């Protein structure tokens, strides 16, 4: 009886369906288990990594200062059409806000914020605020009497723009753009376009460092991966040794080596190659040297690991098939080393993009990169909006670089 039943269920379609659903159930259980295992890490990443980044990046577009310091004005000017000067109620609101804010010492912040948009605005605000509590109706005339700029429509337009909770100001500024009086986006005058230079310089320095690391690292990795002698480990050790020392110390060591009375200049003068010490520090040369030194292991390690899996026999085989040694290398070996090469190059490029310490210590003013801007705005100037916008630009540049790498190399089945 039971045997017949089994036979019946084994034949026909029913078991196939149940098999599929069984498989799905098993798969789902496996996925849930997997998810459970990575859940702590995901939570950790979200709390420690993603949320702070999003929060910081929000600074790049948020503009709470004016709305908080001048709440009535912000409310009154919201619906202003921007064609004629605002009405008496708006002037009154501003006068009252300024009077209160002066008392509470909150107007300075709003003044600074407004000054980002139109220079001179801070002094205008402070100057008006000092006498705001003495003003009488009609407020419009009183304010224009205090400073005639209150009769110019462009100041009110800037005020209206700054009073909104979100602003494109910092993002535009870091891209060397601005809004003109009518709100259209235009380039800033050439003599004030300074921020994009940091971006192109970062990309250029990173690309150069990557290429130089490749030129230096490829032969090193090749030698270490394929030599039969113990020299391979020695070379690898020499490349990896700097890993054990902090970046700061390594960079400082380069300062000792490269300075005017440093070891390198002494050596060159000693052997009579130069008469005067060379300027080796605080220029692009020093930046390259120090960055390559720090970043080389990141290229060599993935490349070395990859190369060790490539049989040398392939080169022999290519040779027996008629390829010259160089051609055998180029058509057979090199393509097989691409996964390691692109992984290493990507690592070096992206790490280099965010470099701060090394260019700051051994570079000149013309060698600073995007991270320098972030530090400047965040720690020196205290303009968190600009700091966040610059950081955002760095993040976008990194993500775009990654995407480009993937497009160029990932399409071939690598990475």
């Amino acid at each position, binding site marked *: 009886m039971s045997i017949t039943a089994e036979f019946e269920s084994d034949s026909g379609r029913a078991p196939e369906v149940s098999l599929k659903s069984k498989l799905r159930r098993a798969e789902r259980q496996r996925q849930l288990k997997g998810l459970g295992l990575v859940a702590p890490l995901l939570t950790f990443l979200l709390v420690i990594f993603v949320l702070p980044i999003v929060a910081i990046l929000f600074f790049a577009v948020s503009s709470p200062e004016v709305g908080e310091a001048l709440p009535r004005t912000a409310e009154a000017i919201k619906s202003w059409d921007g064609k004629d000067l605002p009405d008496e109620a708006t002037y009154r609101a501003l006068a009252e806000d300024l009077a209160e804010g002066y008392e509470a010492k909150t107007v300075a912040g709003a003044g600074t914020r407004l000054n980002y948009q139109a220079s001179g605005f801070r002094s205008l605000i402070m100057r008006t605020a000092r006498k705001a509590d003495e003003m009488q109706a009609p407020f419009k005339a009183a304010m224009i009497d205090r400073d005639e700029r209150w009769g110019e429509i462009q100041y009110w337009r800037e005020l209206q723009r700054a009073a909104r909770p979100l602003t494109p100001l910092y993002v535009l500024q870091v891209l060397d753009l601005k809004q003109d009086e009518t709100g259209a986006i235009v380039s800033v005058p050439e003599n004030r376009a300074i921020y994009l230079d940091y971006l192109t310089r970062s990309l250029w320095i990173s690309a150069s460092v990557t290429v130089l690391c490749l030129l230096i690292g490829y032969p090193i990795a090749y030698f270490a991966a394929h030599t039969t002698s113990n020299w391979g480990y020695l070379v690898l050790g020499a490349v990896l040794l700097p890993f054990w020392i902090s970046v700061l110390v390594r960079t400082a060591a380069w300062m000792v080596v490269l300075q005017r009375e440093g070891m390198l200049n002494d050596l060159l003068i000693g052997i009579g190659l130069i008469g005067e010490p060379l300027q080796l520090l605080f220029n692009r040369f020093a930046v390259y040297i120090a960055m390559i030194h720090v970043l080389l292991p990141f290229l060599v390690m993935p490349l070395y690991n990859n190369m060790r899996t490539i049989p040398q*026999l392939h080169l022999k085989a290519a*040779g027996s098939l008629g390829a010259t040694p160089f051609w055998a290398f180029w058509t057979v070996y090199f393509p097989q080393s691409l996964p390691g090469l692109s992984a290493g190059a990507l690592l070096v490029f992206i790490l280099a993009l965010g470099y701060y310490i090394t260019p700051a210590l051994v570079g000149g003013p013309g060698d600073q990169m995007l991270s320098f801007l972030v530090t400047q705005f965040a720690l020196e100037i205290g303009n968190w909006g600009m700091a966040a916008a610059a950081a955002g630009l760095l993040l976008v540049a990194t993500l775009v670089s990654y995407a480009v790498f993937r497009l160029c190399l990932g399409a071939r089945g690598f990475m």
Partner: protein
Amino acid sequence: MRDLADTAPIVQFRGIDKTYDGDVNILEKLDLDIQQGEFVTLLGPSGSGKSTLLMILAGFEEVTGGEVLLNGERLNNVPPHKRNMGVVFQSYALFPHMSVRQNVAYPLKQRGVPKAEIDARAEKALDMIHMKEFGERMPTQLSGGQQQRVALARAIVYQPEVILMDEPLGALDKKLREKMQIEIKHLHEQLGTTIVFVTHDQSEALTMSDRIAVFNDGKILQIGPPSEIYEAPNCSFVANFIGETNNFSGQVTAQSGDACTLRMANGAEISGQNILGARVGDAACMAVRPEHVKLDLEQVCSHALKAKVTGVIYHGDHIRYELDVPGARDVTARSNAHMQDALPEGQEVYIHWDMDKGRVLDPLSGAEGAA
């Protein structure tokens, strides 16, 4: 077998010496001629120098002394890519980043063959190894046997003068190996190209070759057609390396013409062919193939040896007896009898063989097979 006598050798090794450290000779004063169209197998245990000789021919290794000639021209110092030889490696050495078709087209590309011709010839080569429909696959998507076929196609597609195979079937399982042996043999007949084949598998060598060169310790001990190597080994090493052999060690007590008599350790005397011209008093060893050992319940002739069956092993097409023979070790005999007629274990028997099947060779020693 081919008649090769009147053609000039395509490959000649003359007095080849090879050493890596200056102390140990990998190859020693080695001479070998290979005829046009011949299938020559270099057979020997690992470390006997056979692969080294092949790598010297391919151009991957330099000789320490002597010269290599191809069609009468010196090959020394000619780099591998100018030698026009096809090499098939044990590990296939297919390029993993190229499809099967690109792999096969690779040598043609290196030679600047026009695109259309490359496609046609690659297609034809793939067809020859029955891999036509696998052209777009990547090597990693193929089984071991398929990969080796592609490697084969890649080595024949540019019609090299000599094809070198370095244990090409070593990584395959037994069934597949036997199938590929036959396919390679057919390919050889179709192409007529000279093939130099390296293996340590004696049955492979016997199946495939026109001639076998048996290597040991950097020297060729014997070279000849498979039947000659198997039936008429010229030393104990060859007799033991190729096929199974019973060894009867002893001292020569009498010699007449090309026959001689050997007295074993226990005093029993046996007779056989005196291959190496051993003289009375010399130590020697007689080699007898298991299939030539005859078993009888009665003592039918004077030089039969007393023995006892210690093991009966059924092999399907034959039965193998393990015998305990006083004065000799590990003696076996093959019988084509049916299992029901088999002798029982513990049976006392007499063993003997025809005089010409016992070959008196050099004595076995620690350095086994030193000629």
